[in-house]
C-alpha cells in the first residue's frame, strides 16, 4: 500500500443498517476522513466467515477514488468514487460489502464499481456497475439491474422561459395533476385493448407508442436505443408479469418517481449546453419512472429461476439476491429477453407520460412544443463491446442506479449530439436541483456515472421529521408548486432525506466519469 494512502477500515459496530433502520449491521464500514487513519475493526464477523471476505478496507488512490483490494472469493477489486464530503454517506451502510459481493461474480472484469451516490440495494448496491466477459463464462444477474427494470429519466425542453409561467404555473400544475396518473390503482394514460398490443409495447417500446400517435419521430432519435432494446422476448415474460403490465402504460407509480417542471438555473458548459439546446432560464420537464409492476414481476420470476439453476452451473454467490446465470445459458438468455421487454415497457411508459405532458402544456400554455433532449435508463444490463487489458471483448455491463455516459463521437449517439457526448440526466430531490451531465472521452467504469442524489435518511425518519402539509408550505414558499397524492408520500421524499446532488455530480466530474453541463431547479412537482 502506498504510504500516503488513507484508509477507512471495517468497524462493524451497531449501525444504521443498510436499509436505514436501527438494526445491527451484518458488518459495516467506518468512515475516516483523516489522512493516514486506519479505523479498527471490531464488529461482528459471522458473515465474513461465511463469505471469506475481509472487512472493507478502503485505500485512497486519488481524492475521489478509493480501492478495496480483492480478498477471499473476490475476482477483481472494488473501486469506489467518492469525495471526502461524501465518504461518510458512502460507508454508512452495507453497500461497500455489496461491492465486495459483486466482485465475486463469475466472469467479472476490471472492477466492481461504486458511483458517488452508492447506497444499499438488494444484492447489488444501488449505484453499482459491474461488467462480465460474455465469452468467458460471464454471468447476467437480475439483481444487477434491479426490480424496476429500465427505471430512467427523460428531459423535455420547451420554448418557454420562466417568466412565461408567471400567473399560469398553478393552472399548469393542476392540468398535469389531472393528466398524469400515479399511485396505486389510479390507472394509466394508455388503455391497451388487447394482449397483442401489450406484446407490441414489449417488443417495440417507444417506437410502438410513437407509431400509435403518442409522439414524434424525433423522440425516438433522442431515446437510448432509438426507443427500443432489440431482442425482447415476450415468451420469456410470465403471464403474471403481463397481467401486471396491462393497465400501467403511462403511469408514474410512487416512491421517488416524479414529473417535474424545471428551470435551467445555471449553465456550467455553455458550448455543450447550447449544442444540447439548453440555456439559462429555459423551462424543461423531467420525468423519472420505470417499468412498474411488470418489471418487478420479471425480476422476481427470473431471480427464482436462477436460484434454482445456479447449482447446475456450478455457481455460488454470497447473497441470494445476486442470483445469476451465464449470459449464454438458457436462463441467462431468457432473462435478457424478458429484461429487454421490460426496458421497452419502461420507455413506452415515459413516452406516454410525455404525450400527456404535451397535452397539458398545450391546454394551459398554448404550446405542445416539448422536445425530447434525451431518455436514458439507470437500471439495465447491456451487451457492449469494450477494451479490457487492450483486448476487444463483449461485456454484459450491469448498471444499477448508474447511468451510461457515452463519450463524444460514439456511433450510438444521435447526429446532433455526436459532438457533445451523451446527455446524462441526474435527478436530485424536489427541493434542490437536478443536473444534465455529458459523457467524456476515457470515462471510466465502462462509460458509466451516477444516477441521482441517493438517500441519506430513511423514508420513515423523513416522515417523522416533517409533516407533508408543512413541507408543501415550505416548498411553496420556495416557489415550488407540489401536486402529490399523499402527504405522507410527500414527507418521505423531503429534500433533506437526500444527499447533496451538487456534490455527487461534482465528484463524478472530478473522477473523470462525466462533465457538468447545466443545473435545473424545480418549480412544479407531480408525485404519487
Amino acid at each position, binding site marked *: 500500500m502506498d504510504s500516503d494512502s488513507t484508509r477507512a477500515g471495517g468497524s462493524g459496530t451497531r449501525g444504521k*443498517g443498510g*436499509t436505514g433502520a436501527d438494526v445491527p449491521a451484518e458488518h459495516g464500514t467506518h468512515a475516516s476522513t483523516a489522512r493516514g487513519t486506519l479505523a479498527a475493526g471490531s464488529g461482528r464477523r459471522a458473515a465474513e466467515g461465511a463469505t471469506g471476505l475481509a472487512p472493507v478496507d478502503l485505500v485512497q488512490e486519488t481524492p475521489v477514488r478509493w480501492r478495496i483490494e480483492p480478498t477471499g472469493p473476490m475476482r477483481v477489486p472494488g473501486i469506489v468514487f467518492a469525495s471526502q464530503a461524501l465518504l461518510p454517506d458512502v460507508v454508512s451502510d452495507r453497500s461497500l460489502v455489496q461491492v465486495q459481493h459483486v466482485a465475486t461474480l463469475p466472469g467479472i472484469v476490471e472492477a466492481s464499481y461504486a458511483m458517488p451516490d452508492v447506497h444499499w440495494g438488494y444484492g447489488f448496491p444501488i449505484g453499482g456497475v459491474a461488467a462480465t466477459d460474455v465469452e468467458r463464462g460471464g454471468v447476467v444477474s437480475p439483481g444487477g439491474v434491479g426490480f424496476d427494470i429500465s427505471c430512467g429519466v427523460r428531459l423535455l425542453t420547451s420554448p418557454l422561459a420562466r417568466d412565461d409561467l408567471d400567473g399560469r404555473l398553478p393552472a399548469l400544475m393542476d392540468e398535469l395533476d389531472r393528466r398524469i396518473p400515479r399511485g396505486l390503482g389510479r390507472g394509466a394514460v394508455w388503455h391497451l385493448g388487447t394482449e397483442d398490443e401489450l406484446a407490441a409495447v414489449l417488443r417495440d417500446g417507444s417506437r410502438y407508442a410513437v407509431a400509435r400517435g403518442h409522439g414524434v419521430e424525433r423522440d425516438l432519435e433522442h431515446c437510448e436505443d432509438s426507443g427500443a432494446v432489440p431482442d425482447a422476448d415476450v415468451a420469456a415474460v410470465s403471464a403474471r408479469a403481463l397481467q401486471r403490465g396491462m393497465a400501467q402504460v403511462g403511469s408514474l407509480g410512487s416512491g421517488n418517481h416524479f414529473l417535474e417542471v424545471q428551470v435551467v438555473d445555471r449553465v456550467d458548459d455553455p458550448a455543450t449546453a447550447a449544442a444540447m439546446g439548453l440555456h439559462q432560464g429555459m423551462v424543461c420537464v423531467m420525468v423519472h419512472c420505470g417499468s412498474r409492476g411488470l418489471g418487478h414481476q420479471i425480476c*422476481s420470476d427470473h431471480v427464482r429461476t436462477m436460484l434454482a439453476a445456479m447449482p447446475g452451473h456450478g455457481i455460488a454467490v454470497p447473497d441470494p439476491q445476486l442470483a445469476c446465470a451465464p449470459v449464454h445459458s438458457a436462463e441467462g438468455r431468457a432473462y435478457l429477453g424478458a429484461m429487454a421487454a421490460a426496458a421497452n415497457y419502461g420507455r413506452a411508459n415515459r413516452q406516454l407520460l410525455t404525450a400527456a405532458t404535451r397535452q397539458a402544456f398545450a391546454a394551459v400554455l398554448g404550446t405542445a412544443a416539448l422536445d425530447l433532449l434525451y431518455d436514458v435508463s439507470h437500471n439495465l444490463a447491456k451487451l457492449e463491446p469494450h477494451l479490457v487489458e487492450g483486448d476487444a471483448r463483449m461485456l454484459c455491463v450491469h448498471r444499477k442506479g448508474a447511468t451510461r455516459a457515452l463519450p463524444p463521437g460514439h456511433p450510438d449517439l444521435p447526429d446532433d449530439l455526436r459532438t457533445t457526448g451523451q446527455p446524462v440526466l441526474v435527478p436530485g430531490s424536489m427541493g434542490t436541483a437536478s443536473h444534465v451531465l455529458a459523457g467524456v472521452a476515457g470515462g471510466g467504469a465502462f462509460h458509466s456515472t451516477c444516477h441521482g442524489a441517493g438517500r441519506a*435518511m430513511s*423514508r*420513515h425518519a423523513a416522515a417523522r421529521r416533517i409533516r407533508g402539509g408543512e413541507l408543501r408550505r415550505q416548498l411553496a414558499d420556495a416557489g415550488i408548486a407540489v401536486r402529490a397524492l399523499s402527504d*405522507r408520500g410527500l414527507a418521505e421524499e423531503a429534500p433533506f432525506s437526500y444527499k447533496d446532488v451538487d456534490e455527487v455530480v461534482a465528484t463524478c466530474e472530478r473522477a473523470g466519469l462525466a462533465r457538468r453541463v447545466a443545473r435545473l431547479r424545480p418549480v412544479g412537482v407531480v408525485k404519487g
Partner: protein
Amino acid sequence: MTIAGSRASGHRVLRRDVDRVVEAWGPDRAVCIAEALRALVETFADVPDEVATRVLPIGAGASESPDALVGLLEEVIYVVDVFGMVPVRFHLGIADDGAVGGDMEVVPLQRVKLNGPVPVEVSHRDTSMHRRGGGWRCQAVVGV
C-alpha cells in the same frame, strides 16, 4: 416497529428505508404464514373492520422452505397491483400434501386508508421459515 398478536400467534413489522421486515409466529405453518400476510398488508394499509366484498383463493406449494412464504406474499402484492383489492382477512390451512392454501377476503383499495408505500417485491434474502418451540416462526423482507 409495530407488534400485534399474542405469544401463541402474532406478527410484527420493522420499517426500514427501502423495505419492511415482516416477522410472524403461530402454532402451525398455516397460522404463521397467515400472520405474515396480515403483517404485509399492515405495512401499507390500516385494515378496515368491515365486511369484505370478495373472496379470492390463495395457495402455494407444499415445501416447508421459505419459498411457500415468498410465493404467498407475492400473491398479495399481485392482487393489490392488478386488481386494486386489499386482503383484510386470511383463512389458510394445510392440505394433506403439506401445501398451505385457502382464501382471502378482500376489499377495494378505495375503502382502505393507506399508511405507507405499497410493497412491490419480496426479497430472497433474509427470508426464513422454521420450527421454534412448539410452533413456527417466519420472516421476510419486502421492498417498497
